[in-house]
């Protein structure tokens, strides 16, 4: 039995070994077949294929899609594509680069800045992709190169659509700009879809809506001659253009806002509280985004970077300022909602507030004090002591919890790339970042929007819109709809919101009424309007801290140490159609400097007078 079994197993072992041997022989034979085939291709037919490779004629080329255009609320074109011819060198195909450029410069003008830009882009190029040596060729230059081009292998004329921003300075901070794709971006994008594209959104709306604006690449098969030039197209699959964007933004209002700021450094954000549409978003001063499209020159870039006004800095969405008194209405709401105060409860302001058992005096902006005030009077007079007391009794946890619901400390989600989230201080934040316990005194400072509390003008506008909406907090959006070119209708982009519920709905009206009084008889009475009712709140935020016994004296301070002026408002009170936040850096008092800016914008918007005036080529001469 055992012997038979052993015999069987031996036979089995032999059988498998024989099969493995046969398999090995078959594999060797099969790979030999490949070798024979290769010998045929690489040895026998080598000459034939060498000839074919030298005049390989059929190539697949990507067809870049046209980037979607951008229109404002009234159909004014804000971002356009304009056809341009450029001369490109594919460095990998050129033997002596310097000699080629020298030879080219005798045919077509090449300025030193062209050389400089070429050198800059050469370092960031994608291999086997042309780098432009000259942009915006004139028809004469195109014709001249067409005649002599054969002497320049690796040099080609390319027709492409280049982005232009006709109202550049008015739109730079909202739209951002496109620029040439660099190596890092190449790692993030879908390479096949960007095979023919040279530009990508670098900031603002252009970056946030890159997917909509870019479109889908197409392909064509072309016959090329020995030098790689296209002779004819054999077959093609057309690209799908990017979608056109239609914005909520009103460029006329944008202009009014920018001009209202004048020479001041600052920002304005105006939102339609009903849908979160961004009507105007201005950061002043601005810059010309067209400079960046083809790569900005070192001199221009240095000038922008070294300007003390920081024109490249988008104050509206990236500027994080202490919001100052512009958050007092939210603190007041928090007090009402948490039951810590009522609209009738009065607090006595003696000009300063001290925590029990502490000697530090937290001062009111009015040294002599306001006397006894209820909530509405405290808002109208912007009394600090009232809010120190309220914040102290509420405690930081309830205070920051409620303010966070309005969006403080988090990104609003606006479709402008690069937004910052500000800072809503909490106990947990301080422990994590500063490794310290929370001090009760800090709660008081947060209660008047100072200390480590930071908010962007955009966040202030969104929170103000939420008050106008009785608690509906809407994600701000610049783009309203996207439209496929040629399609009859645009698709509306979705609106996102959440709602803050208060136990007593009347509390919204109490706060709104107080804000209306701020404009009618309080700190912003200088912009009182007889045509419509405005609800607003002024604010002043300190650039530096005063010592315990120092006085703030605007007249003797250098401009850059003066307080920032802030103002938030919405109007009309009964049917809010615009919510606005204004900051004027080092502008002094909010009521004096920032409120009039807001008034001009609201007048223009509610009066329907937002027609674009006097822009274009003539401007600035």
């Amino acid at each position, binding site marked *: 039995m055992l012997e038979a079994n052993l015999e*069987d197993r031996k036979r*089995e072992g032999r059988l*498998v070994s024989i099969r493995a*041997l046969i398999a*090995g022989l078959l594999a060797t034979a099969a790979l030999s077949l490949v*070798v024979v085939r*290769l010998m045929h291709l690489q040895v026998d*037919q080598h000459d034939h294929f060498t000839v074919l490779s030298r005049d390989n004629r059929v190539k697949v080329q990507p067809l870049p899609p046209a980037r979607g255009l951008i229109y404002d609320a009234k159909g004014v074109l804000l971002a356009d594509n304009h056809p341009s011819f450029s001369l490109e060198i594919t460095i990998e195909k050129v033997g002596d680069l310097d000699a080629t450029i020298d030879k080219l410069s005798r045919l077509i003008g090449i300025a030193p800045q062209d050389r400089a830009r070429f050198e800059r882009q050469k370092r960031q190029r994608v*291999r086997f992709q042309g780098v432009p040596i000259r942009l915006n060729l004139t028809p004469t230059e195109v014709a001249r190169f067409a005649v002599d081009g054969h002497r320049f292998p690796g040099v080609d004329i390319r027709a492409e659509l280049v982005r232009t921003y006709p109202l550049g300075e008015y739109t730079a901070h909202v739209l951002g700009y496109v620029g040439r794709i660099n190596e890092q971006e190449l790692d993030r994008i879908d390479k096949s879809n960007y095979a023919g594209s040279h530009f990508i959104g670098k900031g603002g709306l252009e970056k946030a809506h890159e997917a909509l604006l870019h479109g889908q690449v197409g392909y064509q098969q072309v016959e090329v001659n020995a030098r790689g030039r296209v002779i004819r197209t054999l*077959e093609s699959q057309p690209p799908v253009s990017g979608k056109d964007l239609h914005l909520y933004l009103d460029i006329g209002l944008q202009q009014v806002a920018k001009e209202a700021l004048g020479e001041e450094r600052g920002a304005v954000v105006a939102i339609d509280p009903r849908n979160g549409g961004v009507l105007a978003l201005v950061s002043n001063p601005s810059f010309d985004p067209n400079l960046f499209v083809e790569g900005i020159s070192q001199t221009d870039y240095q000038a922008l970077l070294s300007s003390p006004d920081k024109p490249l800095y988008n104050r509206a969405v990236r500027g994080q300022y202490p919001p100052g008194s512009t958050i007092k209405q939210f603190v007041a709401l928090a007090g009402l909602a948490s039951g810590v105060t009522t609209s009738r409860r009065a607090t006595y302001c003696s000009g300063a507030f001290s925590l029990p058992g502490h000697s530090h005096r937290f001062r009111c902006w009015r040294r002599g004090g306001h006397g006894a005030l209820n909530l509405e009077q405290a808002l109208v007079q912007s009394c600090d002591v009232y809010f120190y007391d309220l914040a102290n009794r509420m405690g930081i946890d309830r205070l920051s919890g409620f303010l966070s619901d309005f969006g403080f400390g988090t990104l609003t989600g606006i479709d402008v790339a690069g937004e910052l989230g500000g800072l809503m201080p909490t106990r947990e934040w301080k422990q994590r970042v500063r490794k310290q316990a929370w001090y009760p005194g800090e709660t008081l400072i947060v209660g008047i929007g100072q200390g480590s509390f930071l908010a962007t003008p955009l966040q202030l506008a969104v929170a103000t819109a939420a008050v106008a909406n009785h608690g509906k907090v809407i994600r701000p959006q610049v783009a309203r709809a996207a439209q496929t070119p040629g399609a009859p209708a645009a698709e509306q982009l979705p609106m996102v919101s959440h709602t803050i519920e208060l136990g007593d709905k009347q509390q919204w009206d109490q706060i709104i009424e107080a804000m209306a009084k701020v404009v009618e008889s309080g700190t912003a009475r200088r912009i009182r309007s007889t045509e419509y009712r405005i609800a607003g709140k002024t604010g002043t935020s300190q650039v530096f801290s005063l010592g315990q016994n120092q006085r703030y004296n605007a007249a003797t301070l250098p401009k850059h140490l003066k307080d920032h002026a802030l103002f938030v408002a919405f109007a009309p009170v009964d049917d809010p159609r615009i919510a606005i936040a204004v900051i004027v850096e080092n502008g002094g008092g909010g009521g004096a400097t920032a409120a009039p800016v807001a008034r001009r914008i609201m007048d223009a918007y509610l009066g329907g007078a937002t027609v674009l005036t006097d822009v274009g080529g003539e401007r600035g001469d």
Partner: protein
Amino acid sequence: MAIRSSNYFPDDALDTGQPGLWQRIHLDAPLLVALLALCGFGLMVLFSASDQDPAAVERQLIRLGIAFALMIAVAQIPPARLRSWSPLLYGVGVAMLIAVLLFGDIGKGAQRWLDFGVVRFQPSELLKLAVPMMLAWLLSARALPPRLLWVVLSAVLTLIPVVLIAKQPDLGTSLLVASAGVTVLFIAGMGWGMILALAAVVAAVTPLVWIGLHDYQRDRVLTFLNPESDPLGSGYHIIQSKIAIGSGGIDGKGWLNGTQSHLEFLPERNTDFIFAVIGEEFGFTGILALLALYLFIILRGLVIAAGAQDRFGRLLAGALTLVFFVYVFVNTGMVTGLLPVVGVPLPLISYGGTSMVTLMAGFGIIMGVHTHRIRSRG
């Protein structure tokens, strides 16, 4: 009474001493060196084929690291344990294939992926291991060669996943899974009469498959038969790869100097058509060296299979080695115009991770079969 292995195979006499270092870490030195050489060469070619993109090479290097780690881990598993897992693995694999058809992710027009939130997984890859394991499990329970009933059962167990994968549609992978089933049967010693009968059945079924093919798959077969008929469509790949290879000549144009690949005439040069880049840049001599390396790996795998101690190990090691051969042959055959264009990568050289991980796990199994030996006590 226990039957000791030393009674069966002459080379078992070598195992009577203490196990060597390689055996203790369960790796096979000749195979390991050859695989490392292959992958090193592959990275060099990829650097050129990706237009010298260090990021692509880096990503590939990470994948290789994962694949080698998996190989080493799998090699530690004794074949007896693998055998006990086989039916479960097969069952799970087929269930996931059905899940892919029902809820799978569609990538590049084909439904191949299962998304588990964290990882996306291609169940068809698992079947490249599970099918030969299942068949080896089935056939190793009885004396070899297998009787007709078991051959038929094996064919059915192979066809279920093959059909499911072909429906995704993924012709390349279904071909590889089918070949895994066929090679198990071949190594098991299936009678020549049955082999002929099976060939006849395949020939009879082919027209039916033709009807079931997607248009683009039919296109590929037709273009294979006459590539020049459609120089701008599907034939473009083959024509361009032949030009690239042919113009490479005996010595090649040199590393990084292939004009056809770099001037973008050659499509998919990082992935399925990377063999053409090798042909252009390293010439006939370079390709010969590469094919010799592949052949060495295949022969070494077959030697391990023939020398394995039990049926399961023999069948599995043999089948996995032959699947690797099928990869090499189908890819090189397709790029040189011998075979139709089916999406099979050049193993361990083409850019991409899924097949590499399965292949290296397969080599882990082969090494495990070789090194987990029952030693004689004498």
